């Protein structure tokens, strides 16, 4: 009896370890299958005629499954510590929900027909809804998850409509009959419209992003890590499938439209991120910004593909795929570190945090690595994917005769602007939370434990490694694009026509060298230093809350871009709220007219229905 109780108390730990081993196994299997390079397809028929489960494996899906499995494994290791620190009840339920969620994502990536896709997509959405709604007693969580589930289902409806477009043209529901289609303009526009709306709603592009900054801050942190790092990439995967594998020829203006949408999403996301005062809200808007960057790359690749310029299409698509990998790595890292901090301080508000690096230096260093990757500074991985994107934007100006020269330089300038504002948000996040002094007193002042350290440490190390030696990832990506990005040895990346080249390995070596010099010199300098109070204009006993606050930090940027925010809400919330309210009002008045409480009206309805039925049966009888 005692043994049973002990086991059931720790059963979730065994489950987590088991699942993480499963994910590591899947990851290794992906690597093996990728090297082998064949495509596999499996059909499982059921007794019902139209319902078949089909699964399809090719290099693109193996790439994405590898990302999901790697992040899933690390997330499971992290959860071992996190669930204990936050002390959730019903730990087994949480573990099982989370792991089935990750498995459903892997299965979505494997699907090869409409039914299987919709099944696993729905499982993924509902499980993430339950996970976001874990703490259902708070009203904010309840509202956020409601918006999330409604928007996800609207998105699924749009995706269904785009599938209808394919079905009508090919009369088949299976993805492998949909390869390399040539459709007429009407159907291509139909599919384009609904795929942008449907997949965009799940990915979080502008106008359709409302659920993202509401759902991520309220979910438990490892769920936010999974959602931001992995779930919002699933629609991007399907989008790439549609426009680079399924459909062969489409007008270049589609790509330009996606490029513009990506640029606006990027700008809007980062401007909103810089004014958030809660940790995870800022990270959620930053995810929106990164999705914008990925869409810029995809839009460029679409333009080049439709103009049949293969080497540039490969470069842009390669940049997007690289950024997908990088974003999943550093965003998971940042959400996990935010989670650890929140487990100790029990609050997300930056205005109540501060000075965390003094009691949690390992957490601070790891968050610093994550922040440096977010801002795309060398020698970390964000820099490489953004460099590839800049190069494809630069080279796009060599394409004469199309309108790309108008959009590309503006897009590149706005990419630089978002990089700058991302730096502002990162300084605000890291500086105000970790540096300085705590603004309110925190009870659990302890550093992170082993499992968190191992999981986050592996992610941080992989950020550094991918940044310094990106050639290994580029070798993988070169198999997914028609023309490989030129890699010189293991050190140097060159773009086509020798336009630009970087050797991140040497920059990385120089920086490591610089870090070592700085540590050594510091030991020398600190021996001869005096320690004293911070200068506060001669005042004694300055209160700790007199340090700079998060609202104050973002006040300049808020004032400059003043029309975009209204009392902490996004403008889109305002627009949609207004539309929803007026629509609801009209529908309510209509409802009162159709359903008055008068019983005679209801009998009248029944009579009319009976008469119509008899008449119809007479006509068709």
């Amino acid at each position, binding site marked *: 009896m005692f043994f049973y109780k002990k086991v059931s108390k720790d059963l979730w730990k065994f489950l987590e370890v088991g699942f993480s081993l499963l994910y590591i196994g899947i990851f290794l299997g992906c690597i093996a299958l990728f090297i082998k390079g064949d495509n596999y397809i499996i059909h499982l028929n059921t007794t019902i005629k139209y319902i078949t489960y089909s699964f399809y494996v090719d290099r693109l899906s193996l790439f994405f499954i590898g990302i999901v499995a790697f992040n899933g494994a690390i997330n499971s290791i992290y959860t071992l510590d996190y669930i204990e620190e936050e002390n959730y009840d019903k730990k087994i339920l949480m573990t099982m929900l989370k792991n089935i969620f990750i498995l459903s994502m892997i299965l979505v990536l494997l699907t090869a027909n409409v039914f299987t896709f919709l099944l696993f997509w729905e499982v993924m959405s509902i499980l993430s809804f339950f996970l976001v709604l874990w703490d259902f007693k708070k009203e904010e969580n309840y509202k956020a998850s409601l918006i999330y589930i409604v928007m996800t289902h609207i998105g699924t409806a749009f995706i269904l409509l785009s599938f209808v477009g394919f079905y009508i043209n090919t009369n088949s529901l299976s993805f492998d009959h949909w390869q390399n289609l040539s459709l007429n303009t009407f159907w291509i526009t139909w599919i384009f419209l609904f795929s942008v709306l449907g997949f965009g709603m799940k990915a979080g592009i502008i106008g359709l992003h409302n659920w993202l900054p509401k759902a991520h801050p309220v979910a438990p942190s490892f769920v936010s890590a999974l959602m931001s790092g992995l779930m919002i990439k699933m629609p991007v995967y399907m989008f790439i499938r549609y426009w680079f594998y399924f459909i062969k020829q489409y007008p270049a203006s589609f790509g330009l439209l996606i490029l513009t949408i990506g640029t606006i999403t990027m700008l809007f996301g980062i401007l909103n991120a810089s004014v958030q005062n809660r940790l995870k809200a800022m990270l959620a808007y930053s995810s929106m910004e990164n999705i914008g960057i990925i869409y810029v790359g995809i839009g460029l690749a679409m333009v080049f593909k439709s103009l049949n310029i293969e080497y540039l299409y490969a470069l842009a698509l390669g940049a997007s795929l690289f950024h997908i990998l990088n974003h999943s790595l550093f965003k998971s890292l940042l959400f996990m570190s935010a989670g650890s901090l929140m487990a100790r301080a029990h609050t997300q508000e930056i205005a109540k945090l501060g000075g965390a*690096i003094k009691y949690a*230096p390992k957490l601070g260093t790891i968050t610093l690595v994550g922040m440096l990757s977010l801002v795309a*500074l*060398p020698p970390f991985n964000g*820099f490489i994917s953004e*460099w590839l994107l800049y190069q494809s934007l*630069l080279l796009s*100006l060599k394409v004469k005769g199309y309108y790309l*020269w108008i959009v590309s*330089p503006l897009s*590149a*300038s*706005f990419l*630089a*602007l978002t*990089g*700058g504002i991302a*730096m*502002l948000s*990162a*300084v605000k996040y*890291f*500086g105000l939370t970790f*540096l*300085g*002094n705590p603004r309110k007193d925190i009870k659990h002042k302890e550093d992170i434990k082993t499992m968190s350290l191992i999981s986050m440490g592996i992610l941080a190390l992989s950020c550094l490694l991918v940044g310094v030696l990106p050639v290994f990832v580029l070798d993988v990506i070169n198999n997914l694009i028609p023309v490989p990005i030129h890699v010189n040895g293991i050190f*140097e990346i060159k773009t086509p026509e020798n336009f*630009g*080249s*970087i050797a*991140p390995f*040497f*920059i990385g070596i*120089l*920086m490591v060298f*610089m*870090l070592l*010099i*700085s540590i050594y*010199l*510091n030991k020398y*300098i600190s021996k*001869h*230093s*005096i*320690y*004293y109070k*911070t*200068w*506060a204009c001669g005042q004694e006993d300055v209160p700790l809350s007199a*340090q*700079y606050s998060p609202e*104050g*930090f*973002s*006040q*300049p*940027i808020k*004032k*400059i871009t003043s029309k975009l925010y209204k009392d902490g809400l996004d403008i889109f919330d305002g627009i949609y709220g207004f539309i929803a309210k007026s629509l609801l009002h009209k529908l309510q008045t209509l409802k009162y007219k159709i359903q008055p409480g008068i019983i005679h009206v209801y009998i009248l309805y029944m009579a009319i229905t009976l008469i119509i039925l008899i008449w119809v049966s007479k006509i068709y009888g």
Partner: protein
Amino acid sequence: MGNIFIGILQIVIFIALAPAIKGFIHKIKLNLRGQKGPSILQPYKDLIKLFRKEPVISKDVSFISKIAPIVVLLATIISASFIPIFSPNTLLSFTGDVIAFMYVLGLSTFFIALYGLDQGSSFGGLGSAREMTIASLAEPTLMMIMFTFSLEYGTSNISEIFVKAHSHSFNVPIAYVFSLLALFFVSMAENAKIPFDNPETHLELTMVHEAMILEASGKYLAIFELSSYMKLLLFISIASNIFLPFLYSSNMLLNILFYIIKVIIFSIPIALVELSVAKFRFFRIPDLLMISFALATLGFVLYYA
């Protein structure tokens, strides 16, 4: 091997020249105001004095304050090793991409802003907030300028741009005047010059860069000051080497002399502008930076369209 030697020589000359340029600008400003002013070599003496002093470190800091100064200095040196000074053989010429250059400079801005916040005082936060806003608004202009001359020369590698600009068959398009003006604005913004910032006063009304390094003293302050001198010389070098490709010969000593002359030519407008305007109110700075973005776009569109 000879190339590595030339690369190291370029960096050494760069670091050696940086305080002199700052002293020169200061001297012109004061002379035009009617004062005699300190000698041009005064910044060297300041640096030596600061290096000898022991730093006073605040009790609230973490390890960031101890590594940030040196990271800033070395990031500036690494970006300096991308820029050809008198010869295209720089230390990192094989990897010297304009975008890498901008981002390595971004690394130094990031760490200096973190240093400001680490001190736990409100001055540091103030300086960091303002500095990051100005730096992020200056980025699109810099990117547009880089785009213009990358496209012009057909490569984004800085050393190759230098070589092509100095070859004899190259016509300088007059649209460069706009890009040069835009670069001028951005240099003033990034290097804490009037009208963007007044580092001579230490009032919270006027300081941006100084606010972040207010707590630094002794050796750390010396390192920060040296980095800011070098950053100024960096921007002047870009302007002079890429926009004024005159005065180039194959003799190396003559090239060093020409480089010094070009840098002096470019320092004079900086001093003149600093004298003629007052420091702008902070919320007028974004308008200025947007005007510089408009100039850069005009330069690009005139060249390309």
